[in-house]
């Protein structure tokens, strides 16, 4: 599904990713852990096509297509989804209208018929329920005045509506209390599917108690320095990142 080979990228003239390689097959969940400044968020931003991140080397193939040549919206339409660490507040644009525009764009790309407003509202209300968001959130501005937990649940709701092939969760657990974490994890687990893959970027092992990964990778200094099964996360939690860094040296 996703094949990253020797990816190198820089932000504002600073090299962040320094030869990252990763292969993800359909249905797999990969966790990416690592210390601050390792390049975890950069990876999500580079994959989703954020401007200002310059790819200086390597390839990224998504479902056989070179996504590095696509802009952000094309990647999203191809089925790539980034759940933001800090979802943006957009007052004046209602959540419902935003979601409708997004679903319209993606359905059109897939050659599916546009949904009527009534159909869409019904669907959006269902998804709200699944992530435990009151449906009044649909009428409010995008993320406007949402608590941290509500913002993250809104991200998961978008994921449910857009039905992407690959979901990148960028530190979705940051700022969440245990209840919100469970709701988010349940949302993600309900979306597990043999054809859908996940990249879970996180600092802490805690989230992985709820979303059990198939693989755990350690990202340090722009490269994956160690990969393993879910037990690697526990080991990291116990020994800290210096353990890996020490091992490398």
């Amino acid at each position, binding site marked *: 599904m996703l094949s990253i080979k020797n990816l190198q990228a820089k932000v504002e003239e600073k090299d962040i990713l320094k030869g990252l390689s990763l292969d993800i097959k359909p249905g797999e969940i990969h966790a990416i852990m690592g210390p601050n400044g390792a390049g975890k968020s950069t990876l999500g931003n580079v994959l989703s096509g954020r401007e200002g991140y310059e790819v200086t080397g390597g390839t990224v193939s998504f479902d056989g297509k070179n996504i590095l040549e696509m802009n952000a919206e094309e990647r999203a339409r191809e089925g790539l989804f980034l759940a933001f660490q800090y979802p943006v507040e957009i007052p004046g644009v209602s959540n419902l209208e935003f979601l409708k525009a997004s679903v319209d764009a993606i359905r059109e790309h897939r050659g599916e018929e546009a949904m009527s*407003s009534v159909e869409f509202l019904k669907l959006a209300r269902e998804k709200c329920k699944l992530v435990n968001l009151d449906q009044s959130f649909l009428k409010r501005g995008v993320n406007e005045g949402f608590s941290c937990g509500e913002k993250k649940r809104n991200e998961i709701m978008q994921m449910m509506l857009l039905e992407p092939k690959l979901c990148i969760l960028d530190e979705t657990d940051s700022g969440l209390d245990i209840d919100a974490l469970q709701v988010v994890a349940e949302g993600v687990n309900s979306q597990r599917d043999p054809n859908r893959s996940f990249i879970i970027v996180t600092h802490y092992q805690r989230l992985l108690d709820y979303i059990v990964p198939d693989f755990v990778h350690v990202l340090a200094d722009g490269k994956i320095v160690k990969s393993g099964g879910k037990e690697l996360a526990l080991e990291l939690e116990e020994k800290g990142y210096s353990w890996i860094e020490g091992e490398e040296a």
Partner: protein
Amino acid sequence: MAAVDFNQQAVAFASGANNNDLFKSLNEQGLNKFKALPFPTRKTEDWKYTSLFALTKNDYNQSIQSSDLSGLESLYEIAGLNANRLVFVNGVFKAEASSIEFQAGVVISSFLTADSNIKSDISNQVGKLAESDRNLFTALNNAQVNDGVFIKVDKNVQVDKPIHIVNVTTAQAKTATAFARCYIELAQHANATVIEQFVSSNEEQNVLLNQTTEAVIGDGAKLNHYRLNSEHESSLHFGGVYVNLNRDSQFESYQVLLGGQIKRLDILVNHNVGGRHCEMKGVYLPKHDQHVDIHSYIEHKAPNCTTSEVYRGIMADQSKAVFNGRIHIHPDAQKTFAELSNKNLLLSDKATINTKPELEIYADDVRCAHGATVAQLDEKAKFYLRSRGISAKQADIMLSFGFINELLDSIPLDALRIKMRPLMAEQFTSNKELTKHLLHEDEAGL
């Protein structure tokens, strides 16, 4: 073409006007005031950023030749708005397009068709508020006022239907000025909604519309006032709104201005007696070479009054806008609470905004805040939308519209809000595909 002397021609035009007798003294007084006022230049503080050069290129001080309404009705239809309606074309009242429902305690009439027992009221009241000392166009309006709208609501009466005043301008054989006028008086605890709408035929305009509105809001009374300018982009509009608030009264105003060749609105609100509230919200959206200028003056002369002013503008292409919001707290106006916010979005490198929020405070126990911002579209927000499959172009439109939608969303009159939202969105694109995300409120079942 040789430059024309606007003032000289205006005086000749007003002196030769064949107006009705109702406003003999006001006409005379206005003309005298006008004669004493110089034609504004860039050195005139109130006109620093708005050039009136266009008014010296042609002679606008000529009378209207035709005022045919046929085929223009759709310009001002507001679906679902059940209103008393008065239609004027180039300042001429069109009884056939107007409809006023009788209601006890309410007078709604054009000046010229008013019952004879009301005419003395009209003659005595109109012009009471419109300060012509500093505004050239108001002085000229006073000098030329002939027809207009008179609204008087008795004590404790709530006007059942909104009052929809339509001012249409159409192109003339030669340049001309149309005068329009509106006078509103609400007695104690009366309540009314007035919508002043300005539209024009969809063709190059050569009529200057000079319009003045006066509103006296009695003790405990409330006026909901809307002013919607959506004329052709070549239009010339000079508007003045003068409001006097009495004890515990309220003035709630929404202004929406699309751009014109020159569009200027002066609003003066007087808090003369304590306990009143003034709330003004405005949106201006010039594009191409259009120009919009809003000057508001709020005079707090008495204690315990509040003012909230929120204006937002989006300037596209080479357009220009001017916002000058002045709140003046006089020494007696203790316990005043006043806030003024003006936020602007520039969509192009060539667009301009000149904004000046002014607070002048001479009382010591007041709470006041003012601020202005100028920004471009938020790149983070744009990426967020694009990361959900929304095209860059549509994201721009969603964000631009969102910037003003916060104000549009607060319009309490449903029919108007539903009319304005798509109309405003169309300002950013003519491609309906790019605005189809805007859901019709009823349709979405919200």
